[in-house]
């Protein structure tokens, strides 16, 4: 669902490898840094404590089931199938997304592809289409779109922009001169591409792949429609079939273990060594690579990609709207569902953008091994199915909160904020890294108070990144489904929940308008996001 997740992954080099020029990013060894930022650490720890709630819930429930109960749930026959299904799908889709995302980014950023400005927008719009709408679009039209091959097709088309966006940004910011140097030293075309171009984009590619893999682990709606069983769909079955919350929690722990593997794998692959541009003097644009005879095939490839990723879901929604049997039944109207969705999205996005600041400041300005771990640990939330987070929150409010706010809008917004926190963190961190700490120091030395400095200097510089984080969370909320079903106030519908109610009753005609409105309101934040990448890359060129 969270195809809204973009930006390069965690780690220091994002969304584009920071220029090693005039603006040194990240921690700078200075005497003043010795003082421990107590307030920041306190606030950040509190935020992390809230984020840990779902994991605590899992452990409590699994503990309630007893060791033998958990083991018998985990080591049953189906688990093998689920691991196989989940892992092979994640690997294949991540690989395909890496190829498509990187290829498209290279063609758009580094070649004379005709209509680059148009393609640039078209290739990222699929990000605004909920995964379950893409699978609905395909599966409702063609029988063969199901099972493993259906899941590969649909998920690749739905999430490849997660790789494209960070790679495009990093290619834009990286030094094309290095390619030129390599070529002039007699290195072949292909090897130059592999060694230099891919090397420059390595961090961004890995970051994008991390997000894709995490999305694969937590995806539910699309796989449910395609009839493909993964860990997450099975966790839902446990929740919804056998009155067995402990069983679901035991399976969720396996999912957490899988996502730890993904995080560790990404960390290991990222490895050491960074590639950046040579310095301030290298900021020049080279003429784009000529595609020559490859021009037509490349153009055709972009056309096909757009038709598949954009044309089919939108076209099928439009088709069903006019051709689906329409039964006049009650349900939320499109405007009221839209209003609900928008207000939840705005609230969660505001909460997340604010809550990520302390952690991001810590990570960027006061980095240490423990604090880095604190920050990385929040990514686990991404792989946690929404239903687990929602159940955790209802468990804690019932158990310790006297049922306060249960099934109320604020609790649902809190749930969204927890689920999508890592997305906001990625964006906020990246942009804070670009607001040099030296400017803070300067302002402080001029007698400005600390919070004033934060507001007037740091946040202004980090503005575009904060906006990107905001949009990212907003996009994800628009398409969230499973936590919504559990925690939404009774009688209220979001666009996603109403779409789902109709889709699962085969009322395609009625589901379609909700799909189209979801796409429409997600398109705007997607556009803002793409502008953010454009601008951040641009700013980097200016500052170098």
């Amino acid at each position, binding site marked *: 669902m969270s195809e809204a997740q973009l930006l390069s992954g965690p780690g220091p080099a994002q969304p584009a490898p920071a220029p090693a020029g005039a603006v040194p990013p990240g921690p700078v060894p200075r005497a003043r840094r010795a003082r421990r930022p107590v307030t920041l650490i306190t606030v950040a720890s509190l935020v992390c404590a809230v984020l840990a709630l779902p994991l605590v819930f899992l452990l409590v429930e699994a503990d309630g089931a007893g060791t033998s109960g958990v083991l018998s749930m985990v080591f049953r026959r189906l688990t093998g199938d689920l691991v196989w299904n989940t892992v092979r799908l994640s690997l294949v889709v991540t690989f395909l997304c890496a190829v498509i995302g990187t290829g498209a980014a290279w063609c758009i950023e580094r070649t004379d592809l005709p209509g680059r400005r148009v393609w640039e927008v078209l290739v990222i719009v699929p990000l605004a289409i909920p995964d379950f709408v893409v699978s609905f679009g395909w599966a409702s039209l063609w029988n063969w779109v199901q099972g493993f091959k259906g899941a590969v097709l649909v998920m690749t088309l739905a999430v490849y922009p997660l790789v494209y966006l960070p790679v495009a940004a990093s290619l834009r910011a990286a030094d094309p001169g290095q390619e030129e140097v390599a070529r002039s030293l007699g290195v072949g075309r292909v090897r130059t591409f592999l060694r230099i171009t891919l090397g420059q984009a390595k961090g961004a590619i890995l970051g994008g792949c991390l997000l894709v893999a995490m999305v694969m682990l937590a995806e539910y709606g699309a796989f449910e429609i395609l*009839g493909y069983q993964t860990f997450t*769909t099975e966790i839902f079955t446990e929740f919804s079939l056998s*009155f067995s919350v402990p069983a679901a929690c035991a399976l969720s722990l396996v999912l957490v273990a899988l996502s730890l593997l993904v995080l560790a794998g990404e960390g290991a692959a990222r490895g050491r060594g960074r590639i950046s541009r040579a310095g301030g003097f290298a900021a020049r644009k080279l003429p784009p690579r000529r595609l020559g005879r490859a021009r037509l095939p490349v153009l055709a490839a972009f056309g096909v990609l757009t038709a598949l990723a954009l044309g089919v879901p939108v076209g099928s929604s439009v088709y069903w709207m006019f051709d689906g049997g329409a039964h006049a039944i*009650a349900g939320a109207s499109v405007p009221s569902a839209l209003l609900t969705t928008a207000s939840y999205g705005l609230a969660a996005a505001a909460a997340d953008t604010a809550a990520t600041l302390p952690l991001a400041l810590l990570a960027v300005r006061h980095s240490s091994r423990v604090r880095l771990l604190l920050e990385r640990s929040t990514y686990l939330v991404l792989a946690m199915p929404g239903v687990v987070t929602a159940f955790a929150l209802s468990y804690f409010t019932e158990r310790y909160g006297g049922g306060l706010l249960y099934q109320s809008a604020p609790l649902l917004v809190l749930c969204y904020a927890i689920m999508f926190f890592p997305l906001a963190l990625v964006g906020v961190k990246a942009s804070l890294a670009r607001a040099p700490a030296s400017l803070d120091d300067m302002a402080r030395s001029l007698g400005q108070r600390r919070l004033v400095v934060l507001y007037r200097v740091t946040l202004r510089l980090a503005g575009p990144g904060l906006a990107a984080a905001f949009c990212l969370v907003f996009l994800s909320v628009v398409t969230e489904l499973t936590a919504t079903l559990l925690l939404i106030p009774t009688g209220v519908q979001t666009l996603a929940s109403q779409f789902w109610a109709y889709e699962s009753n085969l009322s395609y005609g009625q589901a379609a308008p909700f799909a189209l409105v979801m796409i429409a309101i997600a398109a705007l934040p997607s556009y803002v996001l793409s502008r953010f990448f454009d601008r951040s890359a641009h700013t980097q060129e200016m500052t170098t």
Partner: protein
Amino acid sequence: MPAVLTGAALLGAALAGCGGAAAGADGQSITLYSGQHVQTTDALVAAFERATGITVNVRSNDEDTLADQIVAEGARSPADVIYTEDTPALEFLQEKGALAPVRAATLARVPSRYDSPQGDWVGVSARASVLIYNPSLIKESQLPASVLAMASSRYRGKVAIAPQEIDFQPIVTAVLRDDGRATALRWLAGLKANAGSHVYPDNETIADEVNRGAVAFGVVNQYYWYRMRAEIGAAHVPSRLAYFTAGDPGYQVNVSGAAVIKTSRHQAAAQRFLAFLVSPQGQHIIGNPAKSISFEYPIGSGVSSQAGERPLSQLRPNPITLGELGDGSAAVAMLRQAGLL
């Protein structure tokens, strides 16, 4: 940042105001947790609100999730009534002591074989499990006469199953009861092998996939086929229905029911809703395709279906009782052992 936080807090407070639970003009309202199809529930709720002036706030989700929620919510549960497609969720809540007794007059509207053995829930409608098949992929004469034969190797690749579907559990329970554990496990293993990749999440998907020719046949409740035909039009429905032989464990009549939650603070209004469901008016809505697209069989107040289906009285299902079906946990354990869950 404080400004941002304050803004977020204000927004949150504003959101709290736009919550759903609205009361009717006379202030009476109940909350309904519904696992029934949205369209059916909507039609019944709208008629009830018109007839009584009591507002019904509907919360729709999987009924087992709703049952889990009611147990987790405990004494503070906002739910007044639960309305489910099948009886295991109701039996589960009954075992947990979460249900209030249904009024005798309400129970009396429905034949007792369709009601809770303890009188804690009332049956509202029924449907039959049948074969759905696509004539372009399999001839009617080739269809299995018994659900047990579906596991035969001659149906390799032709069968669709939905092990997660709550409607599948009663069939498993009946096979277990009639033929014993060993046979049931062998049967499930055969089904799994025959289904291959045609393992679907629910009956809607089986109906849809068979209809589109993705797979030859499967078992669904009869009303899914009628609903599908109403939704997409007879011209788009080449699939057909067939029945197992009388008394076969695959031939079931399942019951949809409703109950009042013990902790409800609106007991009288909640009981009125149950009474309405089985009243002639409520049953006519279920039985009349012009009023709802339920296509389930009415079972109360002597109302019969007007949907042109094979009449309920002519069905010859397996004799298993709703009490024997229980909360379905034995079936779930079997499905787990067979690797289908």
